[in-house]
């Protein structure tokens, strides 16, 4: 299982802050994950419709499209940060 976390307005769209999912075969990178998630429902499609507004962290480290994701990982999806 892979742990998925959603923050800020992504969470409003997905309707969940965190979930455990079984990644389908063939989902091996951050890019694969971002391409697959919208197929899980309208809320996910809405949350991810503009990839330029999505940031991803794998195991609490910023990750890029080609970085690997696997069972046991914690993957967080969120908008560009606005703290400070």
């Amino acid at each position, binding site marked *: 299982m892979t742990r998925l*976390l959603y*923050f*800020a*307005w992504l969470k409003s769209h997905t309707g969940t802050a965190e979930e455990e999912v079984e990644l389908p075969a063939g989902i091996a990178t951050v890019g694969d994950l971002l391409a697959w998630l919208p197929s899980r429902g309208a809320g996910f499609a809405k949350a991810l419709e503009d990839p330029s507004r999505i940031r991803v*962290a794998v195991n*609490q480290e910023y990750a890029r499209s080609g970085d690997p994701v696997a069972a046991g990982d914690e993957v*967080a999806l*969120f*908008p*560009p*940060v*606005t*703290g*400070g």
Partner: protein
Amino acid sequence: MSVRVQRESFDLGRELAALSAGNLAVGGLASFVGLVRDFDDPAGRSPQGGTALAAMTLEHYPGMTEKMLERIEAEANRRWELEASLIVHRYGRMEPGEPIVLVACASAHRQAALEACQFLIDWLKTQAPFWKVEETAEGEGRWVEARDSDEAAAARWLQKPKAAE
């Protein structure tokens, strides 16, 4: 070196006093406090240009937040010779006038303290996983958009790894 992520407010005077207390090598103490304003200002316009705000709520990613703040602080201590540094960042709901964040650096030399302080807030703004939602006077909530100017401010430090003292 110290990083704190907390819901409660903080006493600025006490935090700054603690930073240099008992360390007679400190010649300069620079600090920056970010506060909640009573208006939003997406384009960096004047106060008159924005919408009235009743409050601001900060959400964050517990675990990653501390990790990123500690890394940013360690980087500042790598780039400048600091006697002490501090980052305090709040989360939760805050009203106008309340402090959101404090960064402070103490050094033997003023330039190191000032530059490191600017570096901390610039990097924190683009690296630490916090998100602000503004609450208008009508109770409406709206997620704050990231600003290109913050990215540009952070990018300066990539070109200038260590400034002259």
